[in-house]
């Protein structure tokens, strides 16, 4: 299996893709619409974004299925489309994929919370994720569970994948920085999260979203101290800003982001890419710096 070979090759840094949501918005997604619906309505736009990332140098890209788990679709009154959305997502990424690259099944948060905020539980989450995993299993090479802010929800997602699939799992939580270190918004410490993910038997432990590339350097150092497993890091390109009432702007330059990514690799990341606000240009810049290093 190619992914395991990449992980085992000490000289290899695996380049993931960058943001999908912000690329879709650039192409005029209507307010409030779930980007996952575009797999059906605008398949060529989604395929074009995947293609741009592969051409920019991504070794692997993820399906446009961040919001296509059962509970989140239910929030958007689209749960009846769960099969079609996920199948179309596979079709769209397969069209764009070079033969040497890999397809990553993307699994995002459910949008529902545990008490006292909401009514979700590990069991409820696991059932929801399992429905999505069953649909994607036949088309993906590995999994990326990302942007999760509750370690119990992460456990549910990991278990749902393992119920159905024996493919590798990257589990990626999202943290905020506090005076006492990195925590999820639900109050799970970095130590606790790394420990639980490790015990659940994931292949790669990572973090994405919320933090910008600069803060992710320190986070990578901290994760390296806590685990021997490979690390995946996908930072945001800073905080979005609205210009002229309609246009979303990320102020951080591609060069600055790529420089931080090089430091993140030095601190121990095996897989790097970008989250919100990053684009194929970002990935291209990282690819060229990776080539120059070797």
């Amino acid at each position, binding site marked *: 299996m190619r992914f395991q070979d990449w992980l085992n090759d000490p000289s290899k840094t695996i380049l993931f893709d960058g943001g999908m949501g912000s690329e879709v918005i650039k192409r005029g997604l209507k307010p409030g619409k779930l980007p996952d619906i575009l797999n059906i309505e605008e398949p060529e736009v989604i395929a074009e974004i995947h293609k741009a990332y592969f051409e920019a140098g991504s070794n692997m890209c993820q399906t446009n299925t961040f919001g296509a788990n059962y509970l989140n679709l239910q929030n958007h009154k689209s749960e009846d489309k769960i099969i079609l959305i996920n199948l179309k997502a596979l079709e769209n990424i397969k069209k764009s994929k070079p033969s040497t690259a890999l397809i990553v099944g993307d699994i995002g948060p459910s949008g529902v919370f545990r008490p006292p905020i909401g009514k979700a539980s590990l069991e409820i989450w696991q059932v929801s994720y399992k429905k999505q995993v069953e649909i994607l299993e036949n088309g993906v090479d590995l999994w990326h569970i990302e942007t999760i802010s509750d370690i119990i929800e992460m456990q549910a997602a990991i278990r749902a994948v393992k119920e159905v699939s024996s493919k590798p799992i990257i589990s990626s939580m999202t943290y905020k920085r506090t*005076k006492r270190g990195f925590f999820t918004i639900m109050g799970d410490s970095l130590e606790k999260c790394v420990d639980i993910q490790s015990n659940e038997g994931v292949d790669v432990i990572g973090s994405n979203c919320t933090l910008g590339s600069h803060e992710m350097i320190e986070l990578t150092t901290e994760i390296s101290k806590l685990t021997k497993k490979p690390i995946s890091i996908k930072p945001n390109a800073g905080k*979005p800003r*609205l210009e002229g*009432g309609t246009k979303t702007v990320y102020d951080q330059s591609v060069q600055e982001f790529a420089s931080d990514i090089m430091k993140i690799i030095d601190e121990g990341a095996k897989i790097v890419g970008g989250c919100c606000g990053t684009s194929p240009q970002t990935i291209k810049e990282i690819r060229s710096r990776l080539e120059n290093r070797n």
Partner: protein
Amino acid sequence: MSTEKMLNEISDAIVSLDKDKALDLANRAVNEQMDLLEVVEKGFGEGIRKIGDLWDEGEIFLPELMLGGNIMQDAMKILIPHLKEQSQKISLGTVVIATIEGDIHSIGKTIVATMLSANGFDVHDLGADVPAERIVDEALKSGAQFIGVSALLTTTMTGQKRVVDILLEKNIRDKFKVILGGAPVSRSWVEECGADGYADNAVSAAALFKSFLNK
């Protein structure tokens, strides 16, 4: 128990998220005919402010913040009928709050609504995906002084401006303070909309709403 000790115990009960104790003390304050306004402000209010500070410092997280707000609301349910008996005005003001049309992200807005309610505002939460027109209608109907509009998506933020524009069209802009919320909102966006303010989180939102009371 002295008044001061009682107020400290109430505040401590909120900070330690001890619901039974907080509600027990609320009932006791009623039975002992304490000055309930003082109980709300210096007991429960002080507790919720401390919770807010702990959130700011990263000492507590979302579940504790919500739990504290919920306990405060339950305590207020005990106190408010008696406060009205004492013919004192409890509400700091009426707030109509909603997530704008096209945006179903309600968690941040709900947290702000809980915190405002815990801080003594009368809050009408219209939910998520609410058209700008309806937000204005409800604000007029309820006699609100404040309108809170949340948007998480940069694509739905324009609806926040629409709320202010409707108020201007109807010539009722000065009837309301319009506060914006949501991750992508910034100072410059507030200025562009002609809104009155924004806050980064639920705790500073409560402080912001209160700051308008003194003006």
